């Protein structure tokens, strides 16, 4: 019984798949075959980080304090997702 519980517990841990995983071998092959014109999660997120940084830099001239806070939050979320893909420690 205990053995089953341990194995079941391990299976649950294994099932906790990261929301966005690092690029798999399959994805790499697909990207190469498509001459790099593919769903590249890291590329998409990097562009988003750049765009958000550019918007935040516009500061209070373009955005209210509330909007800037939202942009900062969005930037942190996007950076965390990117770090997961690139296997870096998430931003604190």
């Amino acid at each position: 019984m205990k053995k089953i519980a341990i194995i079941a517990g391990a299976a649950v841990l294994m099932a906790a798949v990261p929301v966005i995983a690092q690029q798999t071998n399959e994805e790499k092959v697909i990207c190469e075959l498509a001459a790099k014109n593919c769903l590249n999660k890291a590329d998409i997120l990097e562009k988003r980080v750049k765009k958000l940084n550019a918007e935040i830099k516009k500061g209070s001239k373009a955005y209210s304090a509330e909007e800037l806070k939202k942009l900062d939050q969005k930037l942190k979320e996007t950076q965390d997702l990117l770090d997961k893909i690139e296997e870096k420690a998430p931003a604190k």
Partner: protein
Amino acid sequence: MKKRNIGILLVLLGLAAAGQAEAAFVVGGENGWQFSTDGIVDVFADYRSTSQLPTGDRFVSFLGNNDQNFGVEVGLLPSVVAFNVKAPTVNGVDSTVRIGIYPSIQNKSQDSRFDTSPNIDFREIYYTAKGRYGELLAGRALNLYQGKNILTDMTLLTAGVVPGPATTTTLGHIGYGYLYTNFGPQIRYTTPDLNGVKAALSVGEPYKISSFTAKTNVPRVETEISYATVLGGTTLQAWASGLFESATRSTTFVDANKVTQVTPRPGGHNTSLGGAAGVESGFKGVDLMASGYYGEGLGMISAQDGDLFGSSSTDGAGEERTQWGFLAQATYMLTPTVKIGANYGQSRQEKTAFDKTSAAFIPMKKQEAAVAMVTYNFNKFTQFVAEYTYAQDTWHDGATQHSNSFALGTLFYW
């Protein structure tokens, strides 16, 4: 007993920790030039059992004929040896070269154990120049039309339908959910990424549309528009692609008895015109995909069968047949190393007015296949695959033929 339980736990956690892909190794870089290589060794052992081929003059079957066969061969994608060269960035333009060699491992046929030809296939040799204006690609690469349909099929890196005749690869869902777009010589322009949207247009070498094509003096034009994004934890991509080519028919031909005959619709034109689209979304390990195509003058195996495989693009009167198909798929990452998946696809062909009146030749109506697979990533570069495939052909007279196949394979990536 307790130690044994801990051991089991450690083994399971170890399997869970076996990670995903790493980049191919890179040489150089100091002076702006870089060289890298990537590739796959791809080996499948498959067993196929096929029912009797119905009698009569009918469109070719790719499933064999009342036979059972065991083979050790590559899957849908052959093995790959690829070399990449990156040049220094000049005036904001990044230039790269890719040379992809795709060898099969099996002999030409099981009757010719010393004949390995053609086991080398230079599918890719192109350069790209990418800047703020977008990207120019020149050379031999995967064609655009239905390119994403095959790339999103889970059997791209497994076996799928195991054909009866000796071929350089298995079929995946080629002719059983999409048509094979092939690798071809082309010049392609792709726009910059506009909020996830990219559009591409390529001019390629024209293919024969039927066995009666006389002139291929007009380029084949292909296009693709694609969209990709990440929304929170959800990935989403969608695409649409198109193909257009027109070719002139011959006026006479030499028949099987070496007698010169007048071609049906002598000197007329045939057109290959096709559209394709698809959507794929992934969330928490679940990935759902649906794709399809519709067109005329295409074929039942490759996107433009031309004079191959019974010349299905056109009928006996020289008119284009209409073909369409779809593929639906679901995969799930059961653990970080184990993925399960299933898909089902059909490729269909409509009867023309000539087909309805002619009893001489029976065209194919439907080719369908269902695949169930499980893949296991042993480590970052070694993968194992187990797969079952059911395939069935249905001709326009209602006759059918089916096959069952099992494949066990392994892939090594670098």
